[in-house]
């Protein structure tokens, strides 16, 4: 029985799909070329020459290091908070039905469904009404809020596949709740949590729209990038930082993909 599934794709479709993917990838590759250019004052293409000197220059820039450290700290703490809140929420939502269940899942998704600028200015106006000064923790507050959803999405998908009878069996056989969590639930949802955590880290590490509203004078790496974009100071350093950021965010995405690829393709299917 000849089926469409065994047929080959029309050539026009192949070209259109390939062109679409090239459109998605070429601009990122261009960043890699620019990181090695010898040109300092403009974005001239093709680069007049290639050098690795800008890596050393960037390495010795304290402002880049400060921004990077702040970003990593914020992302780490936001990820931990998001892991706790997202897992609790996913555990409660899955396997039960109660009044208001839909409302709670909407509540979790809302911070990512509404444009980031709304989240940002809402938090800022709340801070100003409550007279909370900007600090490290105001950044974390914002980041954790929209990171919950990625952990939640991954955990919910895994809980759906985890049979509730295993938990009942464990409890029936005399394990207490803690033991059940440690020996039955955690091994089942572990990789989904790691994947969700990595995506949450990547999301927080890269966030700029909400952060501009909650950061005050502090600079996370994306805010540093934004400053360079608006008022370029040393273009080659920006090129190198951009390339490093691409690599740093690719690794957790790839890891998250490999951790969750069997069965539930949920890791990061939406940001």
């Amino acid at each position, binding site marked *: 029985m000849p089926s*469409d599934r065994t047929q080959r794709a029309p050539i026009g*479709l192949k070209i*259109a*799909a390939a*062109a*679409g*993917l090239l459109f*998605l*990838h070429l*601009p*990122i590759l*261009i*960043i890699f070329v620019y990181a090695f250019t010898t040109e300092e004052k403009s*974005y001239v*293409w093709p680069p007049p020459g290639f050098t690795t000197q800008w890596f050393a220059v960037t390495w010795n820039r304290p402002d880049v290091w400060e921004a990077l450290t702040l970003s990593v700290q914020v992302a780490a703490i936001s990820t931990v908070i998001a892991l*706790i*809140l997202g897992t*609790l929420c996913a555990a*409660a939502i899955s396997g039960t039905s*109660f009044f208001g269940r839909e409302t*709670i899942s909407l*509540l*979790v998704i809302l911070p990512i469904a*509404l*444009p980031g*600028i*709304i989240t940002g200015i*809402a*938090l*800022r*106006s*709340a801070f100003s009404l409550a007279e909370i000064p900007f600090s490290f923790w105001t950044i974390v*507050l914002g980041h*954790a*809020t929209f990171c*919950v959803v990625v952990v939640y999405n991954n955990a919910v998908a895994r809980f759906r596949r985890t049979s509730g009878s295993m938990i009942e069996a464990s*409890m*029936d056989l*005399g394990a*207490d*709740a*803690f033991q*059940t969590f440690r020996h039955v639930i955690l091994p089942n949802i572990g990789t989904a949590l790691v994947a969700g955590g990595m995506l949450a880290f990547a999301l927080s590490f*890269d966030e*700029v*729209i909400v952060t*501009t509203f909650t950061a005050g004078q502090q600079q996370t790496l*994306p805010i540093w990038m*934004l400053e360079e*974009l*608006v008022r370029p100071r040393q273009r080659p350093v920006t090129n190198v930082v*951009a390339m490093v*950021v*691409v690599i740093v*965010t690719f690794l957790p995405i*790839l890891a998250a*993909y490999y951790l969750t690829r069997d069965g539930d393709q949920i890791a*990061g*299917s*939406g940001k």
Partner: protein
Amino acid sequence: MSALAADTRHAPAILAGRGGVFGAMSDWVWRHPTMFLVLMLTPPVLWLGIIYIGSLFALLLQSFFAIDEFSGLINRDFTLKTYGELFLPQNVDIVVRTVLMAALVTVASAIVAFPIAYYAARYAKGKWKAAFYLGVMLPLWSSYLVKVYAWKLILAKEGILNWIFAKLHLTFVLDAWLALPIVGGNSLSVSYTGTFLVFLYVWMPFMILPMQAALERVPGNLIEASADLGAAPRQTFRNVILPLAMPGVIAGSIFTFSLTMGDYIIPQIIGTSRLFIGQAVYAHQGTAGNIPLAAAFTVVPIVVMGFYLWFAKRQGAFDAL
């Protein structure tokens, strides 16, 4: 024996109750599933409810305040004056411009994303399927600012795009396009064309995955049946595939539309000096200090998205998410 009997009187189950603090807690949890549910939900609901919903209400509240024109201070009396300001011609312009751009970006995203999603859903197998998935995921997740930066490099006067046009001896085409009203400008990086391209690039990946999910659910035998009944591929596409894939397209369009509407960084870096909603919000809350007007401006995308989501739900788009 008597101790066991005493225990089972309280718990008519097969096993005796667990000993120790953990055991007692476990039993309590097991017997009170509702309380346990409440315990689990309390931290996330408190966090999101207080920090997020609370902030949204604070924002909404501010939009009913107004700024005093003489002192520049915020007058905390309930008024609709700020909402009235939204209907000034310059502000209506901003709203129309933003919604129009978001709609254009959404339509263009659907067109560019469709072949990728369709190929991945129907023809890609095994390794290729994984490659397609990662091929969409990596650009989707890579840094937003780096993507914008890449386009700043591409669209610069001395950048790669002008270089390609020059090499192909097609500079006159580019010049002719830039000479057009509205879409043109002094160079690509300060024109609506540039803004549109960057929006398309940054938000298009969000369209692909929901679209692909919907296309994967289109039964192959329906397409065969359509062909057997004499439909040309074009007819099959329009009358069978597209209607069945529509919920996925709408689901994807929620992202592209919402994200474009709320963006203030892309039009600030690449584009004309005319404002989009996001930039207006940013400008009013920042240097102008007019938080009520900024808040009223954010209500516009919330309302537009509200209608959009209502429409999407009616079309069954949420099942495709």
